[in-house]
Structures are given as structure tokens and as C-alpha cells.
């Protein structure tokens, strides 16, 4: 109980004094996660839409695999990437291990299946609705994807947010491929893990509160976007 109380104090202190270490860590966290979400959407939106409209043998298998990968344990993703990026690994010469870039890749691996699966669902529903009308205009198959994606834009944001949540919350992947190096690859979640292992529970919890607040802020901002959209009947 006392820990929880002091956690709130810690969170407040950190935020109000703009603790420079904290600022650095927060910026890196945002950079890594937002980049990962960006990449995840870049791949996930068109891929998910493609899966929604295309019909080919093996499609169901791919859909099942994508859905399963939504639950890929971050530490497993991190481990796998470590083996790829290690100097002894196939991509060793790229010297990506223990850099923010490796962390972005790791998180993108976690985010992409989520965005893909949610995009597929949303676009599939939309496609069913628009199918006849589109076909009557000569628009079908892959050609319909851009129209569908744009029309689904507000629902796709939910997919992106889900991906963001997953990436912002994970620690296993970035810990292994980033190495939690001070001032280089230390992000919010790995700092929380570190401070916990140091027994600085209040500080760790305080950082956790900061992380949650950040997530709340971003979700609120996006929700307000969607809110106005709903009123405009765009959803």
C-alpha cells in the first residue's frame, strides 16, 4: 500500500521536474513504438485488405497464421531477432543489434499481425457491404483495395491503436535486441524492469504510471478524432 502511494508521488515528481533522464527515455520509447506502428500499418493495411478481398488457395491458412501471430510472445520475437541480428547470425554484418533500429524491427514484428488481422476483418465487412455496388461499376478484387482502405479509415485507426498498445507495453523484445543500454536503447518498459530488479519499486511503479498516462493521452486523442467522425457518419 505504501508502495502504491509513493509510486504516485514518484510519478508526479518525475513529470513535474521534467527529469532529463525520463525525458530521454520517453522520447526514445515514443520514437521506437511510433515507428514500429508506422511500419506495421504500412505493411498491415494493404496486406490485411488484400487478404480480405483476394481468394486463392491457402488463403485460410495465411489468415490463421496471421491471427496466431497476434499472440506471439514478445520475448520469443526478441530472441528470434537476436539470433538473426547477432554477429554470429545471418544479418550480423548489418550491425543492428543493440540499436534503436533493432528495437523498431522487433516491435514492428509484434505490431504487424495485429494491424493485419484487424484490417482484414474491417475490410472484409466493408467489402461485403460494397461488393455488389463495386462490381456493377467494374471495380473488384485488388483494384477495390484503395477504395476500401480509405472508407475504412476510422476503423483502421482502432487496429493501429491496438498495435500501439501492444508495442508500448512490451518489454521482452526490446530488452533482448536492444540490450537496455543507458542513453542508447533504454526505454520506459526496460527501465521499469531494471528499477524493479534494483528493488526501487516506487520508482518503477511511478514510471509505470507515466507510461500509462502517455498511453491514455494518445488513446484519448485518437478517440476524439473518431468521435467527430462518428458524428459525421463516416464510420
Amino acid at each position, binding site marked *: 500500500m505504501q508502495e502504491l502511494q509513493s509510486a504516485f508521488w514518484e510519478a508526479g515528481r518525475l513529470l513535474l521536474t521534467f527529469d532529463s533522464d525520463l525525458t530521454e527515455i520517453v522520447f526514445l520509447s*515514443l*520514437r*521506437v513504438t*511510433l*515507428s514500429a*506502428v*508506422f*511500419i506495421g*500499418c504500412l505493411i498491415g493495411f494493404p496486406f490485411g485488405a488484400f487478404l480480405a478481398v483476394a481468394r486463392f488457395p491457402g488463403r485460410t491458412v495465411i489468415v490463421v497464421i496471421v491471427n496466431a501471430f497476434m499472440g506471439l510472445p514478445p520475448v520469443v520475437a526478441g530472441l528470434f531477432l537476436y539470433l538473426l541480428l*547477432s*554477429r*554470429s*547470425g545471418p544479418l*550480423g*554484418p548489418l*550491425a543492428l*543489434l*543493440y*540499436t*534503436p*533500429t533493432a528495437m*523498431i524491427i522487433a516491435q514492428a514484428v509484434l505490431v504487424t499481425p495485429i494491424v493485419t488481422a484487424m484490417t482484414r476483418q474491417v475490410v472484409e465487412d466493408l467489402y461485403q457491404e460494397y461488393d455488389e455496388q463495386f462490381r456493377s461499376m467494374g471495380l473488384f478484387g485488388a483494384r477495390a483495395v484503395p477504395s476500401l482502405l480509405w472508407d475504412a*479509415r476510422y476503423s483502421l485507426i482502432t487496429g493501429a491503436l491496438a498495435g500501439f498498445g501492444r508495442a508500448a507495453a512490451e518489454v521482452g523484445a526490446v530488452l533482448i535486441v536492444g*540490450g*537496455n*543500454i*543507458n542513453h*542508447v536503447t533504454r526505454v520506459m518498459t526496460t527501465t521499469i524492469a*531494471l528499477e*524493479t*530488479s*534494483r*528493488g*526501487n*519499486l*516506487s*520508482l518503477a511503479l511511478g514510471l509505470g504510471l507515466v507510461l500509462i498516462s502517455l498511453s491514455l493521452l494518445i488513446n484519448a486523442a*485518437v478517440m476524439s*478524432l473518431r468521435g*467527430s*467522425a462518428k458524428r*459525421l457518419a*463516416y464510420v
Partner: protein
Amino acid sequence: MNRTFTRRFVLAAAFAGAAAVSLGQAVAADMPFITVQSTTSTLNSGLYDYLLPIFKKEKGIEVRVVAVGTGQAIKNARNGDGDVLLVHAKSAEEKFVADGFGVKRSDLMYNDFVIVGPADDPAGVAGMSDVKAAMKKIAGSEAPFASRGDDSGTHKKERSLWKAAGVEPSGGWYRETGSGMGATLNTGIGMGAYVMTDRATWIKFGNKGDYQIAVEGDAAMFNQYGIIAVNPEKHPHVKVKESQVFIDWMLSPAGQKAIGAYMVDGKQLFFPNADKAGS
């Protein structure tokens, strides 16, 4: 439509900007740096936060420490994912060099292990300085004991002490957490168990509860650190020059003095013992 489109555009631009900045960052590496594979207990002691800025200022080389479990640190170094290995598991280190992955192992510093326990001291070992006898008592009274159980230097040391005490620890009272030092302390304290920990971690630890050092001072609980350069013959990409600068400095009088100067709560945590003849 205009307003919402603008907002979306701004969001997209923000994403793109973040991506661009991150990529840019990956390219811009101004100061030369080396990567050191070390252990969580060393990191948690705060030694690196104290020592590395001094080194950086003197030699202009950034030292990036990846702190993981001992086993993982050695494995990483074997894979060439580090330029220097700095751990405290002498026989494993010697094997590392013997297998050709390290150039040479040098003694660097030592600290010691202690056994910490709850204030009510269920096994009655508080104040003892004979660790073997203390461990016999703990096993005898079946007081809970939390072990790291992760094959780390600390864990190997612990196991060797049990062996020396003639005890095979097993049963409900002996709990292997399979975790690092901090996590094991958290868990152990949470269940009122004795824990063997290195002094540095303990002094710095922030969640002591009512725990105190129960057993200390036995020469057998001596914890030796070694520093090794990763062998460029196995991994040509290793930064040989900068690594050697770092190792030389750590072993030099200046470095050794800095190690000894690190204090927490007025107590020295690490005792430099590099071979003055240049082991």
C-alpha cells in the same frame, strides 16, 4: 472532411517524422564506442554509472554495457555481440578463453557475497561468519532459502558453498527463482527466505524490508571479477583498439583507483585487485 483529413495528415506526418528521426539516429554515431557484455548485478551496483563517465572523459570512448545474466553474457560474447566480457565466474571465463573466444583473462576486482535474512532470523544464523556452518543450520532448520537457480556466477558460487557444507539442498524450503539477483531478492524477501547476494547489489537494493545481513566475512564468499577482450580471430569485427584501451585503463592504477573510490552509503563496494605485474 477537411478538418478530419488535416488531422489525419498530421498524425501520419508525425509517424513518418518519428520513423525518419529514428533512422537518422541510427546513422549518426559520432563518438567511438565499444560494447561490454556484463552482468545485471554489476550494473545494479551502480559501478558503471560512476566509472564509465570518468573513462569517457579521459579517453573519449563511449562504453555501452549490455547487462544480462552471466550465462547470457558469456554466450553473447561467444557470438561476438560484444567487444569485452566482464563477469564474475572464473572457471567459465577461463573456459571462454581456452575455447578461443577471449584473448586473455585478467583479474579486475572483487567484492563479496553475503547472506541476508529476515529480522526474526528463523535459522538462527545472524552474525555468523562461517558460511558453511550457517548453511548447514539453514538446511537443518529448513528455513526458506531463495536461490537464483539460473546458472549465474552467483548461483554457481552458492552451489559450491552448499557442496562445501556437505548439504544437497532440496525440498520445499529451497526455492529456485530462475531469475536475476534483484528479482530473486524481491521474491525472497516477499516470502521471508534467506538469500545469498553480492554485497554491492544488497547495499544498493531499494526494497530491503526488515532484512539484514546475516552472514558475512567468510573468505569463501569472495567474488572475483575478470575482464576479457573478445578474440578478433574469431570475430574480426571486434573493436580491438578501443577494447584494449578500456581494458588497459581498468587495469591501470587510475582505473583501479576509480573502482575503489566508488562508495554507496559510505561503504566501498568493489576492491580492485588487478595483478600489478600486468597479469
